[in-house]
């Protein structure tokens, strides 16, 4: 059941992205930025938590989920460390993903060459 919920939740978030691409002049880069920021803001407002509760990976795998993890981390950091946590919490919570993206991204870019455009 949680697979179906993940499929639907993730799919709907991607539809929102597709509509933004087709109906506005937003480039993919801007959409990525908007989605991460929106995810963080929605988390702060308490709106994204129920979506994660329902959709599981369907809500955490799309980019608003990255914003969710950042904001969640910052809130948790503030609870544990006070004002310092606002600065350390977000990146602490997402350190695994950010590091993986840098390391695997670097390795892939070095090891592979761009394919000829056909």
């Amino acid at each position, binding site marked *: 059941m949680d697979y179906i919920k993940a499929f639907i939740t993730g799919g709907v978030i991607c539809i929102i992205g597709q509509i933004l691409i087709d109906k506005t002049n937003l480039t993919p880069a801007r959409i990525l930025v908007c989605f991460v920021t929106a995810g963080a803001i929605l988390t702060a407002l308490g709106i994204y938590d129920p979506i994660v509760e329902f959709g599981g990976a369907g809500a955490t795998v799309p980019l608003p989920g990255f914003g969710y993890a950042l904001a969640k981390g910052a809130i948790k950091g503030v609870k544990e460390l006070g004002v310092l946590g606002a600065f350390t919490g977000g990146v602490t919570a997402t350190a695994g*993903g950010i590091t993986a993206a840098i390391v695997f991204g670097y390795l892939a870019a070095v090891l592979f060459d761009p394919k000829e455009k056909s």
Partner: protein
Amino acid sequence: MDSLDVKQKKINKEYQDYANSLSPKSKVFKNCMMAFIVGGLICTIGQLINNLAKIYYGMNKEEASTITSITLIFIAALLTGLGLYEKIGKRAGAGSIVPITGFSNSIVAPAMEHKREGYVLGVGAKLFSIAGPVLVYGISTSVIVGLINYFFVK
């Protein structure tokens, strides 16, 4: 004469609206279906990794979510290197951009493309051509959220 012009323009516009209402809508619908299916599938794979991490490695929610991101980022980086992610992206649109795999793709693709410019200003810098802005706005927002929580939510 003037009224005829206006009338003609009105007809033109009506036709334009009519034509617009037919063609792009079905294209947008088709794009949305593709985005839904591909995005949904990527998230389902994420859910699978998530469940495996919880069941077999006894990870908690946050750890499972992190390992899911790391695994998907690895797969997407590899597929981008092999030139396969672009092929998926051509059909899937937002379905391949919005999930974390799209973030990984946005890191590898420009870095690979600019390798000729060297390993520091080519690969090293271009890794962040899209990821940079995402991190800038994402992390800044998280700090603001944290500060608001510190000062106003007790």
